[in-house]
């Protein structure tokens, strides 16, 4: 049980950290006008006070140490969010803060209720989010929406708390493309003498509600940087016959973690979770997913593939819950990992809890290195060893780009190749 660090508990002389930042911000915040939202924020703030931030001895955070981040005094900054919904019909997009009053009846049942308050970070977002985007798709709506979240470097350690909210009503069919990357203009904190390297922290919460028969293709691309910590909670609630497909692309980062919760709360729902990740030297990428089958005849499939190089570390922690009464469930989980160096690390932990009859469930995890026979074959035809390695690594990962809109594929493939040593040369051959 974690004990919150209240200001009076802090050892004298120790530096203020994230909790203090949070509590100052909560105290000094302009009170929320809308009563129900104020109460949700207060709930989150109370949770944070009671539980604090996760410690490494908690099972769910064992492989994602956040001590350095928790000890850092961050300044809360505005998130730079951009959205483009041209060509979408029946879709309304607006700032989340405006949606609170304009679409209260649609949001109130769900905001802060779909995503669990499971850790200090999502509670932080729940209490303090400012910038956010709300997407409402009316019954039968169709289209593609692109969201960009650009992290600026202000030269000091800063935290942004963006929040996203999506409701797709009956029969709506949407493609949502979310990109998290660096802003073009950078102010380098490291360049100033005497300033310790500043950290950029992003704590995001996304809540998605899919009505009956609604379909959402959700592509999320995260470009990590050495000084960036990205923590996300993504919660989806699926009604009957709805389909949610998530395609995650996580390219490094000091720590890039996503906690994904999918609740299948209607018969016949389909949940597809694909993830590609790359962790290089000193990088950490973690995926914690929970798929909760509460109704019969639902299917879920998780397929996560990653490559780790240098001292890169990845975590895959996949839980499937099949509740009592969730007959004819099909749930499959697969995690495949490629270690490119002797120091690369993967923690893979599949977990299935099955309380229903007549189900088909499977899980598999592999950890391997490049096949020496394949490497030799390529080299025996004149290919440089490092190009051969890049090509085989790319071949391993590239499968995961097959299910994204075609126009996104070249950029994703380029990014992949850019991460691999000699990838540029391998690019010619791919």
């Amino acid at each position, binding site marked *: 049980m974690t004990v919150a660090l209240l200001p009076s508990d802090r050892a004298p002389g120790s530096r203020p950290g994230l909790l203090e930042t949070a509590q100052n911000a909560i105290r000094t915040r302009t009170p929320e006008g809308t009563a129900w939202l104020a109460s949700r924020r207060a709930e989150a703030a109370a949770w944070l006070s009671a539980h604090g931030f996760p410690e490494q001895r908690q099972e769910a955070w064992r492989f994602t140490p956040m001590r350095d981040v928790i000890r850092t005094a961050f300044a809360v900054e505005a998130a730079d969010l951009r959205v483009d919904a041209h060509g979408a019909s029946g879709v309304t997009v607006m700032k989340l803060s405006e949606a609170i009053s304009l679409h209260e009846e649609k949001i109130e049942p769900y905001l802060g209720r779909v995503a669990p308050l499971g850790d200090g970070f999502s509670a932080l977002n729940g209490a303090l989010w400012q910038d956010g985007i709300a997407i409402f798709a009316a019954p039968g709506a169709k289209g593609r929406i692109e969201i960009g979240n650009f992290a600026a470097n202000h030269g000091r350690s800063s935290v942004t708390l963006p929040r996203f909210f999506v409701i797709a009503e009956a029969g709506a069919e949407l493609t949502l493309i979310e990109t998290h990357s660096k802003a073009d203009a950078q102010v380098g904190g490291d360049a100033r003498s005497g300033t310790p390297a500043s950290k950029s922290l992003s704590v995001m919460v996304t809540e998605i509600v899919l009505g009956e028969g609604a379909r959402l293709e959700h592509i999320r691309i995260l470009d990590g940087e050495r000084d960036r910590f990205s923590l996300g909670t993504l919660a989806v609630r699926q009604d009957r016959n709805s389909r949610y497909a998530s395609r995650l692309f996580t390219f490094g980062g000091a720590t890039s973690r996503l906690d994904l919760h999918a609740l299948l709360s209607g018969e016949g729902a389909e949940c597809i979770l694909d993830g590609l990740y790359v962790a290089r030297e000193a990088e950490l990428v973690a995926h914690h997913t929970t798929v909760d089958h509460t109704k019969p005849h639902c299917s879920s499939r998780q397929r996560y593939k990653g490559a780790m190089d240098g001292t890169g570390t990845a975590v895959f922690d996949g839980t499937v819950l099949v509740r009592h009464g969730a007959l004819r469930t099909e749930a499959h989980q697969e995690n495949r990992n490629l270690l490119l160096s002797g120091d690369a690390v993967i923690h893979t932990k599949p977990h299935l809890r099955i309380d229903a009859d007549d189900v088909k469930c499977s899980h598999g995890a592999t950890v391997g290195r490049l096949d020496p026979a394949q490497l030799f074959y*390529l080299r025996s035809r004149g*290919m440089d060893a490092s190009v051969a390695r890049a090509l*085989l690594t790319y*071949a391993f990962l590239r499968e995961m780009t097959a299910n994204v809109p075609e126009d996104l594929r070249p950029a994703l493939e380029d990014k992949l190749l850019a991460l691999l040593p000699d990838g540029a040369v391998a690019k010619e*051959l791919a």
Partner: protein
Amino acid sequence: MTLLQIEDLHVSVAGKEILRGLSLSVGPGEIHAVMGPNGSGKSTLANVLAGREGYEVTRGKVTYEGVDLLALPAEERARAGVFLAFQYPVEIPGVSNLYFLKAGVNAVRRHRGLPELDAMDFMKIAREKMKLVELDEKLAQRPVNSGFSGGEKKRNEVFQMAMLEPKLAVLDETDSGLDIDALRVVAGGVNALRSPERAIVVITHYQRLLDYIVPDFVHVLVNGRIAKSGDKTLAQTLEDEGYARIEREIGENGRAATEATAS
């Protein structure tokens, strides 16, 4: 000038000595058959020449075009014109057969000071060479050896040989797993690639292949060294008498040799 000179080669795999003093001399334009029973070191010879890891050379020398071949990494040997047709070609899903071959072809061309081929020129030449081994273009466009039958894999090896134009081609039991029709096609492809600048070393267990790829020299590999050399009739002798006779002969010779040095 000799293209390939192997002198007293000793090679161990996982601590076990497989080649025990193998010597062989191959000149350009020559076809050499190396025949031997299982465990004699045939594949070890092929793999050591191509530069596969896991083979420890404990003694001896291999000179290729006057250069120490064993000092070169696998890709440099390939660029210098050494080609190995694998006995069990590996499948590489996700890597296009044609793209990877184009990379190899251009690496060899760069090494030879020739201009690289662009996609169109490469495809033109590729289509011609596919005909040599009756390889369907659709098959060639798949990932490397992906879903290929045994015969198709062997034909793909010879297709690659045709594209890479090696100076020294080592065919490691190319006939294994092939029926007579497939054998004929593969052998036809190899024969079409004979040239005065090209030496071919055909490694095989059975004489049958040598009816189609007629060798200039036949060597019998037993217990890690060449026990006997001759012309193509030696292959027929082996076929008629099996390897046992030669193994016995060596046994006697081995003893005779020891006696000679002792006295």
